[in-house]
């Protein structure tokens, strides 16, 4: 007979006990629920089409109009350099990646409040939801990226002085994964904190918006005065946006040291996000 006060793990398939470990990441069970990730992704995708009049067109209108606005304000009025790229190509590449990051962050930040109904009634590995959120956001990114490629081809056909390194395109996937990981990590940190501090939810959207101007979306890193450059080591969105442009169009880009510092920050945020999220999930339903 096993000891009474602690369960014998051999004897049971599932043991439910108070959470003691700091990190309790149950990746095998997330894998077992992979079909659910797919179903959530499909649900978000289908309901998006059913609920908006313009449907997928919206994905095209939004970045086009934003790029146009930036073109007028930052390109024409403020006269900020675009690193030798056609302004549209410059802005659209930045916007596509930034929008994906912002979507991953803000949608993950409200996981507990949006899914309270579901989380309160049925168990599944909660990590399924952030993963599906990241996947749903990918759809918009793919459409925007396709639009960017169409614009690039347009410029190439018009004979503009634009170099396109098609061979580097697969590497863009790595950048996207990095951005997804970063957006999700920050979103998870915020989601875990909003369980306790609900007012943080209001700040999220606002801070994300301001953050964009601290990232090289509407200006190139090369234009940043030397004395402010250290700041970009601490902004983990610097490297992917700059690298997207240098990979595809051969702009100067950034040095390896910024990349290393950015990756380190993202890893720390990822670990912090997973720790806080797995801690929050076991008791979130008692407070929400």
């Amino acid at each position: 007979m096993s000891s009474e006060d602690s369960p014998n793990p051999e004897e049971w398939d599932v043991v439910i006990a108070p959470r003691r470990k700091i990190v309790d990441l149950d990746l095998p069970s997330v894998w077992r629920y992979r079909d659910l990730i797919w179903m959530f992704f499909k649900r978000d995708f289908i309901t998006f089409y059913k609920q908006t009049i313009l449907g997928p067109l919206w994905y095209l209108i939004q970045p086009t109009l934003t790029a146009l606005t930036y073109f007028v304000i930052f390109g024409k009025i403020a006269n900020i350099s675009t690193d030798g790229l056609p302004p549209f190509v410059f802005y659209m590449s930045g916007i596509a990646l930034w929008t994906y990051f912002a979507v991953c962050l803000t949608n993950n930040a409200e996981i507990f409040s949006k899914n309270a109904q579901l989380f309160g009634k049925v168990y599944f590995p909660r990590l399924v939801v952030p993963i599906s959120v990241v996947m749903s956001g990918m759809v918009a990114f793919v459409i925007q990226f396709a639009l960017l490629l169409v614009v690039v081809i347009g410029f190439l056909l018009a004979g503009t002085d634009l170099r396109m390194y098609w061979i580097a395109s697969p590497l863009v996937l790595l950048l996207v994964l990095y951005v997804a990981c970063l957006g999700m990590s920050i979103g998870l940190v915020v989601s875990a904190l909003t369980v306790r501090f609900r007012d943080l939810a209001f700040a999220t959207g606002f801070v994300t918006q301001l953050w964009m101007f601290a990232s090289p979306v509407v200006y190139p890193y090369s234009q940043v005065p030397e004395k402010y450059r250290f700041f970009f080591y601490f902004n983990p969105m610097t490297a992917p946006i700059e690298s997207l442009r240098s990979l595809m169009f051969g702009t100067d880009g950034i040095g390896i040291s910024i990349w290393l510092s950015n990756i380190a920050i993202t890893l720390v945020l990822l670990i912090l996000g997973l720790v806080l999220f797995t801690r929050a999930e076991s008791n979130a339903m008692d407070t929400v």
Partner: protein
Amino acid sequence: MASDVVIRVHKLSKHYRLGVINHGTLYRDLQSWWAKARGKHDPNTTLGGTWSHSRFRTEGDIFRALEDVSFEVRRGEILGIIGGNGAGKSTLLKVLSRITAPTSGWIGLSGRVASLLEVGTGFHPELTGRENVFLSGAILGMSRREISQKFDEIVDFAEISQFIDTPVKRYSSGMYVRLAFSVAAHLESEILLVDEVLAVGDISFQRKCLGKMEDIVSGGRTILFVSHNMAAIENLCTRALVLKEGRVDFHGEVKEGIRHYYDYFGETKGNNLEGAARTGDGRARITDVWFSDAEGNQLTILKSGQEIQLHICVDPVAENCRNLILAAGVTTLQGEGVLHLSTETGGLVVPHLDARSVFTCTLPRLTLRGGYYSMNLFLSSNGIVADWLQDTFRFQVEDADFYGTGKLPPEGYSTFLADFSWAVTKE
């Protein structure tokens, strides 16, 4: 250890903190922290006395939803979990289904667990029936292949095959419930946790659900079933677990469990208003309540058809007890209103109450059917709630020969007995 024990709950406790540690916003947390740092009174502590639970269940700001609960369930058992409101039934199911983590103790489970705490969890109104079957199945833990294999069976059981490609927002509530239950019922799990889901849907479908649950058990699966419906518990369950204020009060044979549960009501029957949860400004208080027959003999069990009197004792605490309205609401144990006896509808006007008084309500022929009922009491003065007690007074009614014919309407066909007479005349 015998291998046919599929669930073992060992010294399980679940405590909740009653909102002192955390106020939900960063601003308030900082405010409390600042006040504490300066040695001042925390502006956000909840004022005492608002919690209605008995003293030994709360300690400081800790509420003991479950305390030292231990039991075992064997393969193929259907365990009915019963207990009054707030006894910890739902918390137990939530911990068992891993929605919330226990505070101490542990649970061991053998086999796959499926919990059905709500019908239609995760259904999305915009999606079609077909899409929702796959979504809901995945949420409950089925793989896509499993759902595809059982898809036809699920749709047939729900009897909605011709609407399967219609968005569920166009479904009637009955169709919705049938589809949702059907998905869950086809889940291949060794252990099924069910919370009160049979309370929804029409009677024929409820029967079908019960039948399905019996099939599930004959297939060797284990069910934990929470319900207020004692008839369902008695028909379906093989064992019963009675919870009382977060502790196991009884675990054993079903009939005895149900008797135990009713005995508990017997204890709270009568003058147990002191510890009751009250709201209102307290300018007058309800101090006592009891039933009697026409001669004034106190009754503990009422009989349908009997002349009974309900006596409520009211004590005016403040001077200005004017324009009183007293009401007694009789509800089922599930909280559905059955009778509402108010001085206002009864035409009794009480302009001023200056001394302790007994209000008596006479029911010449009790029209309630046999069963257990609960009573809410309400007292207002000048339109302001003075004293309001909910679910405090429980009583039992026994079926009796209401019509003098030795016959009563069949079970499930009438909740009330009405005075009526039949006649037949030639045209």
